[in-house]
């Protein structure tokens, strides 16, 4: 079952949904190539998050550690969070000047459903890095930021 989907008729409200995501993130996800946590432990509304993606094997991104900022507004998860890369990266769905992941070019955000989670976004971005049109693109130097 997807996090927070809660079956057919039960809707998990924003805050409890984010608490679920927080606890899942604290436990650690899968092989650790994708992780996230809250930026400000005092923010009772849990808005700002930092995500990390380790570049997938056999791509120019391999071994690189990408930091992202995710912002969950009041209407999350009805609406997707805004997502932008903090570490510089060159892939098609990311704006070259701002690092913003452009929903038009990233299907998960474009076709957002409330069952999707921040983990799904990060995992999908990792897959995006390994697509044929992204895996060989020339990358900015490591350790530079938007």
């Amino acid at each position, binding site marked *: 079952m997807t996090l927070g989907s809660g079956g057919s008729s039960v809707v*998990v409200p924003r805050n409890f949904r984010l608490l679920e995501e*927080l606890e899942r993130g604290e436990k650690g996800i899968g092989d650790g190539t994708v992780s996230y946590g809250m930026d400000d432990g*005092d923010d009772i509304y849990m808005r700002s998050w930092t995500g990390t993606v380790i570049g997938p094997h056999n791509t120019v991104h391999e071994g690189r550690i990408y930091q992202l900022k995710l912002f969950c507004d009041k209407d999350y998860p009805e609406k997707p969070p805004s997502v932008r890369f903090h570490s510089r990266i060159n892939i098609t769905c990311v704006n070259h000047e701002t690092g913003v992941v452009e929903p038009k070019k990233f299907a998960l955000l474009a076709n957002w459903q409330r069952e999707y989670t921040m983990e799904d976004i990060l995992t999908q971005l990792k897959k995006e890095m390994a697509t044929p049109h992204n895996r060989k693109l020339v990358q900015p130097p490591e350790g530079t930021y938007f």
Partner: protein
Amino acid sequence: MANSNLPRRIIKETQRLLSEPAPGISASPSEDNMRYFNVMILGPTQSPYEALHVEFSAANRLKLCGCMVQPHKALGSWRSPSTSSCGGVFKLELFLPEEYPMAAPKVRFLTKIYHPNIDKLGRICLDILKDKWSPALQIRTVLLSIQALLSAPNPDDPLSENIAKHWKTKEAEAVETAKEWTRLYASGA
């Protein structure tokens, strides 16, 4: 739709919460999600979370703090002017997960509070919300237990290590901080 097929148990509990609220506790479901409740708990007297100047049964006490309001029958909604700028009013949110009542409700404080069993995000360490949950317990019992927790902090089973340590080593000072936080954040604004 979110509120179709709401179990009778939840409907009945909600009705009773609204018609016979427990003293110092108010809980009302949100309009678009009947499993999601806005909750308000008054800090118990004799505790650092005490609602110092709010006394719903005595109108004259209310005048003392400069709020001219009608004494409310029970407590009313948390947006009520009766509680504004008076301290000791704690907002919480409560959600009944799909498994409820076989699983415990999820509850957390929205008002900042200095308490060894409540963390920065308002999460509460309380046995009946975890392994001591029983389906015979209700929203009302949960909220009463939380109110009781405010009267009797338990620094031996802490959620906030620092606050618990503070409580254990310098209790008087910790109580002062709790009072200060109550004044700063729990004014019901």
